[in-house]
């Protein structure tokens, strides 16, 4: 990022290719609408480009990027209440195609598992979902999640614990 702030466009391209998938999936699974995810994905990179000279390598780049994304997501949540209906959630799930390289029998059971996980994620309260996604998609630790969400370490642990309990409940039904 420092190289890009100094004018090195190739550095930005490398950075972008490395993080585009993570950021996009975080946004898509947080927002549950492709159009919203597309919009915020672009907005997120725009803000990053605009703020390139303010970047300081104190934190990981991923943390900084997801911090911007999280702020945008929270803004969007605030504007979009009430949340999407279960029908809309099902529509999103249908739009997410499964990989082609799976065996039919195994694919069926795995599909069911993935479907349940997706549904569980959709049902999670926003704060728990964001904490969970920051962990599994962004690979962030408790401190980093707390830094991004503005919550203490114990709060983050609590959110994750609740999230896991809800997901487990979905698998037991």
């Amino acid at each position: 990022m420092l190289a890009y702030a100094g004018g090195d466009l190739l550095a930005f391209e490398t950075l972008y290719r490395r993080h585009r998938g993570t950021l996009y999936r975080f946004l898509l699974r947080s927002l549950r609408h492709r159009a919203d995810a597309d919009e915020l994905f672009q907005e997120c990179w725009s803000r990053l480009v605009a703020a390139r000279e303010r970047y300081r390598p104190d934190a990981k780049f991923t943390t900084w990027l997801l911090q911007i994304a999280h702020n945008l997501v929270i803004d969007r949540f605030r504007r979009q209440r009430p949340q999407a209906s279960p029908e809309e959630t099902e529509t999103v799930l249908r739009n997410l195609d499964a990989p082609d390289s799976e065996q039919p029998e195994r694919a069926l059971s795995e599909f069911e598992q993935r479907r349940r996980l997706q549904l569980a994620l959709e049902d999670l309260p926003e704060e728990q979902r964001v904490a969970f996604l920051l962990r599994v998609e962004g690979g962030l630790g408790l401190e980093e999640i707390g830094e991004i969400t503005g919550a203490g370490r114990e709060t983050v642990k609590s959110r994750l614990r609740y999230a896991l309990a809800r997901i487990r409940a979905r698998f037991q039904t």
Partner: protein
Amino acid sequence: MSLPRDPDHDLDRLLADDGGELTALYRRLPKAEPPRRLDRSVLGEAARAVRGYTPRRQRWLLGVGSAAGIVLAAGIAWHVGQDAVRHEAQGEMPVQSAPAAPSRNQNYVPVQPLSEPAAKHAPPMAQDAVGAAAPAAAPPPAAAKPVPRKAGARAKDVAPPLAQPATPPVAPPPAAAAAAPAAEAFPAQTQRQEAEAATGAARAGAAAESDLMAKERLDDKALRTRAAPAPPSSSVELRRDMQLAPEDWLAHVRQLLHQGRRQQAIESLRLFRKAHPRHPLPDELRALLD
């Protein structure tokens, strides 16, 4: 899949390095990727941001640089235009602009049409001399000085006209036609020169050839001097410097110092300081600013 039932154990597994079973399952979810149009849009924006990057306080430099560039371009265009006019006057005027020539520059334009009749009326030997001189006469640019010719110099002055058929072989009829009006405009001079050319052409051929070559050498030198790329103006260079990465910019400043262009180096360094106020300066460069 069997998920652990103890919430704390579940959390520990999630926070483990491998992320546990749940993270593994999450990673098997469809890997949604941003569409390509977003890639293009983001990368384009990033590129524009870098290319268009200039510190706000220095934007006036862009204006000054642009103005300097325009002046430079206009100057080059003017020089090229002048060269073209001289070139035409020397060698190609009869074909392209002879009809307008008599009213424009009576001092030297009439000489051009004379070449045609002179060559026509010259004996075969003179025609050979014409042919021999032609290839070498192709680039005779700025030798046409609008100085009135003296009678004693006439024999030699035939030389440039003798060289003119370098163009006429390509399009003789238009050349002849174009030569006619100019010749009519100066009948006495034309006749006198025709006569002199007819009697002295053969003798003048060899002398003219050497004379012409000497002129060409001078002209080529003049042309080279004129055509040599002018060193970029200070503001243009500064503008280029602003596009460099900080380290490259400092290296460029050092290079300027090595080239003995101290003032340019200082200007560039001042600009660097304004553009990158937080970037540390090496001691030897900081001393330049003090």
